[in-house]
């Protein structure tokens, strides 16, 4: 009789785990139908299973906490010498009585909890969120994909973590020694980890962070997504937030968008909503919660290994792009583009004349082209043939190149002595010059991020050797259409631009012309050209980015 229960136990065990084949399933059913003892045993067994699955029910019986390999070796040895139990074949007749079906394991791609929560009232949502954290976690389920990584070094070199690797729920701790990794959960929550960081995938909508930094972007389909740290639980309520666990055990929560629920303290004693623009620190020693400044650029929010971009929320710097960079500081100060050829240059060029041809810039993917506007014929301002109809007539002269420089605002405003702590990036453009940036190419730099605005300050540089001769017009175009102009800008004047951009805008053009000055001017006893001293500069020219 004992063998009957051993067999039953194995069949039930297999069935509970979804591993029985059809004939084994039929056997289990047959045993229960034909034998009341087997039926009772099955009920007791499944009830026991359910009780064992109760989370946290066994803390008081002293479970071992460390894996003991010697113990497991001893187990293995015992099993090698244990007698086998055969599962007998099932009669064909009993199989024919039932419909021929097949077990198909289906794992939800999107958390059911998250979907249903959308349809519920806020009170119900609160309940579901609280409830979900009492429910035992399912393990071994593939739930997230490594979608990108940059300079990532993982601790487990035996099983490499590469793009496309599926991560399963469970106890495995992932150690990202350095670099960055992006995970996309099946419920569409996106998480960026910054090494060094140690984490676990606790459930289909839950990450455990032992230390390091994680940034989560959670769409509506994944509301309820959570980050657990040793002393806090952060539950998303439709948001973007960053969590840092310091080596000393403190947890920092920075909420950049929407709101989260923070549960902190050793027994979840404190629950509070933290909304956009707020941050909290939870002491690792005392569990005390304190207000801290929300730091929007503290976390890596998006990575793109193809363009080598790490985005912390900063703006895209167009001066850096002129310097051959990716807009995030990789460009070279002093690098320039010659508007008369479209080629990069690091040498100063003197005054010269040029046709108003549109010249493609092949060396920088985010710069479409450059030109010397003269308004005498149609002025093309993009590789797609966009025309600037209102282009003013100029002499067609220019001087120097379009240069990536550093400066400071005081210098522009007061024209006082140039100071060495200049920290702002700027594009230096003498009249007459134009440069067109390819917004579409920049959108590819960091996927999942929108270009929202163009902002800059502008004026005339102090380099003007005859300051009183300066007089230039500043123009900003989008797809050939005039969006902004400021005429007759002279030295000592300081202005700002702020232009909204839409996702359909393809090209942004910055242009400086000579300000209606005559071809030949007289200043005191000097004869000057129209472009004399028109050293225009766009200071801190940026594209403001925002996650989609």
């Amino acid at each position, binding site marked *: *009789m004992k063998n009957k*229960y*051993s067999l039953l*136990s*194995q069949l039930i*065990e*297999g069935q*509970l*785990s979804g*591993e029985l084949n*059809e004939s084994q399933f039929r056997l289990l*059913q047959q045993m*229960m139908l034909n034998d009341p003892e087997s*039926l*009772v*045993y*099955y*009920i*007791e*067994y*499944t*009830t*026991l*299973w*359910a*009780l*064992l*699955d*109760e989370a946290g*029910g*066994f803390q008081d019986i*002293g*479970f*071992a906490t460390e894996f*003991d390999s010697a*113990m*497991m*070796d001893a*187990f*293995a040895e015992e*099993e090698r010498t244990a007698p086998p*139990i055969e599962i007998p074949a099932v009669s064909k007749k009993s199989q024919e009585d*039932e419909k021929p*079906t*097949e077990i*198909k394991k289906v*794992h939800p791609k999107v958390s059911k*909890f998250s979907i*249903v929560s959308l349809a519920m009232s806020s*009170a119900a949502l609160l*309940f579901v969120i*609280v*409830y*979900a954290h*009492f*429910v035992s976690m399912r*393990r*071994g389920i593939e739930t997230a994909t490594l979608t990108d990584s940059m300079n990532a070094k993982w601790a487990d070199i035996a099983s490499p973590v590469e793009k496309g690797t599926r991560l399963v729920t*469970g*106890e495995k701790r992932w150690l990202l020694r350095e670099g960055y990794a992006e995970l996309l959960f099946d419920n569409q929550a996106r998480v960026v980890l910054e090494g060094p960081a140690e984490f676990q995938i606790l459930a289909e909508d839950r990450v455990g962070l032992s230390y390091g930094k994680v940034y989560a972007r959670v769409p509506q389909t994944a509301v309820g997504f959570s980050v657990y740290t040793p002393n806090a639980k952060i539950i998303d309520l439709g948001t973007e937030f960053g969590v840092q666990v310091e080596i000393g055990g403190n947890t920092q929560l920075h909420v950049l968008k929407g709101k989260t629920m923070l549960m902190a303290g050793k027994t979840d004693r404190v629950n509070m909503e933290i909304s956009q623009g707020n941050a909290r620190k939870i002491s690792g020693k005392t569990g005390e919660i304190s207000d801290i400044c929300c730091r929007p650029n503290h976390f890596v929010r998006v990575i793109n290994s193809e363009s080598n971009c790490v985005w912390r929320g900063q703006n895209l710097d167009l001066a850096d792009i002129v310097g051959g960079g990716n807009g995030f500081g990789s460009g070279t100060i002093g690098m320039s583009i010659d508007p008369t050829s479209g080629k990069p240059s690091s040498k100063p060029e003197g005054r010269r004349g040029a046709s108003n041809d549109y010249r493609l810039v092949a060396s920088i993917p985010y710069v479409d082209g450059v030109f010397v506007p003269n308004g005498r014929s149609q002025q093309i301002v993009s590789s797609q043939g966009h025309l600037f109809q209102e282009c003013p007539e100029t002499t067609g002269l220019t001087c120097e190149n379009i240069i990536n420089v550093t400066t400071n605002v005081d210098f522009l405003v007061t024209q006082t002595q140039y100071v060495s702590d200049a920290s702002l990036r700027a594009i230096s453009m003498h009249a007459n010059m134009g440069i067109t940036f390819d917004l579409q190419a920049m959108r590819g730099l960091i996927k999942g991020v929108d270009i929202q605005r163009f902002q800059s300050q502008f004026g005339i540089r102090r380099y003007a050797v005859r300051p009183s001769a300066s007089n230039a017009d500043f123009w900003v175009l989008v797809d050939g259409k005039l969006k902004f102009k400021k005429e007759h800008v002279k030295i000592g004047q300081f202005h700002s631009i702020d232009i909204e951009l839409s996702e359909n805008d393809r090209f942004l053009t910055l242009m400086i012309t000579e300000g209606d000055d005559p071809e030949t001017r007289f200043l005191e006893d000097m004869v000057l050209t129209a472009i004399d001293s028109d050293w225009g500069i766009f200071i801190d020219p940026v594209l403001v980015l925002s996650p989609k």
Partner: protein
Amino acid sequence: MGPENLKNPDFFVRQLMNHRKRIYAFILTLVANTSDADDIMQDTALLMWKKYRQAEEIKDFAAWGMRVAHFKVLEFRKKQYETKLQFNSELFDSLIGGAAAANENVDARFEALKKCLSKLDEKSRYLVQMRHQKGETIKSIAAAIKMPQHTAYKVIARLHEQLVRCVHKTLKVEELF
């Protein structure tokens, strides 16, 4: 349960947590698959919450919860009829009665189980912990004990069998073996 509590999520959650063991065990016995039982438990909890707010009076929360769960299991069986093996109707009906009966003393059963667990040797307790508290799959346990997967099944099944016997004995119910 007074009407003042009827729309209070905290009160509902406490009730649900108190009786969750019974409801979950009931579901698991009927569907015999832990993953399906998890999903049904979640759906059951949601439906309970919706009904709870409309209900006037619920005298026996656990019994009511099992009625809701029964409904959800039937719905599940209907939906999964073509894709999953299911116990036939005769067996299913037998299980409903048996599961509800076994659930009546679930708290005592839980206490007995804790005692039985404490009697296990350390290595056995560790395996139970791996399977249930840590949620390890049979595959990962097999890797840990350095044995084929079918052997791990055997080991875990034997441990469960041992615990069933112990709980049974502890509760001093009718001798099964």
